Every structure is written in structure tokens, then in C-alpha cells.
């Protein structure tokens, strides 16, 4: 339930640029994993591959089920993916529409959906925001709506792409709190290493097409030489 396994997966852009080559890893359920690495290393693409939004070679198992074209919709029901830019996933007229989009496919009734929307907004600190339009919200509020929408699906796995990007300190704190509240498996791509240090217990470094290191956050993030070799800096927690 909520495990992720990648077996020798590779992805190359149509123009020939290799993003990652033959990488393998296993993430246990309820693990909180940070994926870090220099810019352009393919971290976002990795999330896209795990979600089946780009086609990678190799095998991917979600909750021990091999992902294929036939079962991709069933697989996606277990995953919530929060994109880097909230405007890419808030496309409905009102906040409540964005949160409820697709909930009917999960089998909920209209009444259940209404109450799920209310509850997820409440936990995200956005009580009463149902009829607000996302184009009038601040970035921090938009990100919280995206999180609320992600949680509304009660996923086994949460994928987050640069969640704290461009947030002010208060927004960032709030976001970290909300992410930590999620009990399922978490995969967080970020260059906000201080956040990774707080939120993740395992870290993978993706660089030059491969996973160059993996292990507990403490071990990896505090290793100054390792971090610098991969164009990263040791976060404050471990300095």
C-alpha cells in the first residue's frame, strides 16, 4: 500500500537528451522521500514518469502492481500529484470545482463530495473558500488549494514538485505543516533543502542521469563533500 518501486527505468527526450538512465529504487509505504539534485537533473521528469505522464522504459510498480497502459487509471487513483505551478492544475471556475474534479471517478456520491471538499478546505486553513475563484487567490492560497485537492483524494502516495517555491516564510511554514500531516508515502522534489530536512526521512540525489546517493536524510544531507560534489549545500539543520 503506497510503495513505489522503479526497476531500471530510463527516459530520453524526443530530441535525444537523456534524462535518467537505468535507475532503480524502492520506496516503502509511509516513507517520506526527498529527491534532490542540481537544476535540470530530471527530478520533475522522474515524477512524471512515475505517474505515467511520460513514457519511460523499464518497470514501475506502484503498491506492488506493475504500471501499464491498461491499469494506469487505477494506479493514478492512488496518487495525488501537486505540480510546481498551481495555475497548471487549478483550471476550474471555483475552488470547490477544482477540489471535487475527479472525485466522482473515485466513487464518491455528490453529498460525500461536498463534505470532502468542505473538510479538505478546513484542514488547509481555507474554510469558506468554496466559491472563490482561483485567479483571485494569492500564490500561497493557490498552493494550499492544490494540497487540499490532493488530500481530498485520500491518496496512498503524494508527489510534490517544488512545493515551497516562491512562498513567503509564513506560507512556507504552513505548507511544511500540511505536508507533515499527510501520513501516506511522500515524494518531494525540491531544492529547498531545509524543507527536505524537516519533511523527509530519506533522500535520493539525482544527478547526471543517475541516482548518485540514497539514504537517510541525516546521513546524506550532512555529508558536506557529497552535497558539494552534486552542486548542493548542506541545509542549516546539519551545519
Amino acid at each position, binding site marked *: 500500500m503506497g510503495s513505489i518501486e522503479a526497476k531500471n527505468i530510463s527516459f530520453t527526450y524526443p530530441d535525444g537528451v537523456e534524462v535518467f538512465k537505468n535507475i532503480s529504487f524502492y520506496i516503502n509505504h509511509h516513507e517520506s522521500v526527498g529527491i534532490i539534485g542540481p537544476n535540470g537533473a530530471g527530478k520533475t521528469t522522474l515524477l512524471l514518469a512515475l505517474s505515467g505522464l511520460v513514457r519511460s522504459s523499464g518497470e514501475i510498480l506502484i503498491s506492488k502492481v506493475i504500471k501499464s497502459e491498461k491499469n494506469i487509471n487505477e494506479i493514478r487513483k492512488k496518487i495525488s500529484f501537486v505540480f510546481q505551478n498551481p495555475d*497548471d492544475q487549478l483550471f476550474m*471556475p471555483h475552488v470547490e470545482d477544482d477540489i471535487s474534479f475527479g472525485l*466522482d471517478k473515485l466513487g464518491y456520491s455528490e453529498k460525500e463530495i461536498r463534505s470532502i471538499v468542505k473538510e479538505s478546505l478546513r484542514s488547509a486553513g481555507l474554510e469558506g473558500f468554496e466559491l472563490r475563484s*482561483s485567479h483571485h487567490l494569492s500564490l500561497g492560497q493557490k498552493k494550499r488549494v492544490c494540497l487540499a485537492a490532493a488530500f481530498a483524494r485520500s491518496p496512498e502516495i503524494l508527489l510534490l514538485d517544488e512545493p515551497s517555491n516562491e512562498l513567503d516564510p509564513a506560507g512556507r511554514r504552513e505548507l511544511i505543516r500540511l505536508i507533515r500531516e499527510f501520513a501516506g508515502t511522500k515524494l518531494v522534489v525540491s531544492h529547498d533543502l531545509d524543507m527536505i530536512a524537516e519533511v523527509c526521512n530519506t533522500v535520493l540525489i539525482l544527478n547526471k542521469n543517475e541516482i548518485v546517493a540514497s539514504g537517510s536524510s541525516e546521513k546524506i544531507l550532512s555529508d558536506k563533500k557529497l552535497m558539494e560534489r552534486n552542486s548542493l549545500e548542506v541545509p542549516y539543520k546539519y551545519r
Partner: protein
Amino acid sequence: MRHSFWDHYSSLNSPVHNIPTGLKIIFALFLVILLTVLPGSYISFASLPILILLITMLIISKVPVANVIKRTLVILPLVLPVIVLNSIFMKAGLKHSLILSVRSFLSIFSLILLVSVTRFSDIMKTLSSWHFPRIMIMILSFMYRYFFLLTGEMEKMVRAVKMRSGGSRGFTLIRIYSQILAILFIKSYERAERVYHAMLMRGYDGNGGL
């Protein structure tokens, strides 16, 4: 943001706001059609009661009167040339044009009032219940949702160009502005791919949802 006046005023609470959307649309249509078909001679004495009705509804709706009047002026650049043209080239042109102006002014007033007291999403819901084509509603909703974002992006690019272009005029500026639009389209295309991904992640298969 200057364009968000619609959202702002349409969310107010008043007896006029609370009239069911379908009724509001039908009433506005009725008024406009009436103003279109009434013979010129009737317009002169029908226009005052209609104006009073509209202003009364406006006041009850709590939407700022000055704002609405200002928005009706958008019709001037079309009405004035017609008045001039007709006065010169048409028999009894001036009288005819003035009646025309009254028709359009009251019509646009009705339309602005309708739009100021009705939320966009309610209009979409009502049109949907009237079996307006689903794909048009989808396109209109997307348009409304992303319009604010795109104008923001466009304005940013235009401002940047203005700061750097100094006194560029005419053709150079047309070229630069056109390039801005090209970039805007490319960005929209790329965003559409990401939105599609977001929809896929939520189980979208081409039916329902929107």
C-alpha cells in the same frame, strides 16, 4: 486588477442579485429586443420609464452607479461617427441617429446591469441547464479562468518592452508586440499540456468533469 470588477460586483448581495439567473438573462433579452423593435416614435416616450426602471434596479443592486455609467460610454466611439455620418448623408439623419443612440444606450445599460449582478459561473450553469453545447461552456470557462493570468503575463512583457524600447515607433513596435503575442501563444500551448496532465492525474478521460 481592472478586469476583475465583474467578479467583485456580481458577488454582492441584493434583491436584484438574488433573482434567478435564468430570469435575469431572459429579462435583459426581453428589454433589448423591445428596444430593437419599438418604432422610433414610441422610443421617445418609452425610453424614460425604461431608464427609470434600470436605474432603480441599479440602485437596489448596490453596484456603484458611476461605474456602470462609465462603462456605458464604451458605446460612444461607435455612436458618434454614426450620428455624424447620418446627419450628413441621410434624410432626417440626425433624428434617426439620436433615436438609435437611445436604443443602444439603454440596451447596453441593460447588458451591463445583467452582467454586474450575475456571477459568470452562474451564467455558465444556467446556459448548461438550457443545453448550451458542453464544449462551448468548457471553452468559455477556460477562457474566463485563464484570461486574468494571460493578461498579467502579457502586461509584464509589454512593460518590459516599453522600458527598453525608448522611442521605437511604428513598424518596429508592431514587430515587437507581435513577438510578445507569439511567446504568449507558445506559453499557452505549453501550459495546456500541463493542464492536461493535471486532468489525467485526476482521472479525466474526455467525459464529464468539466
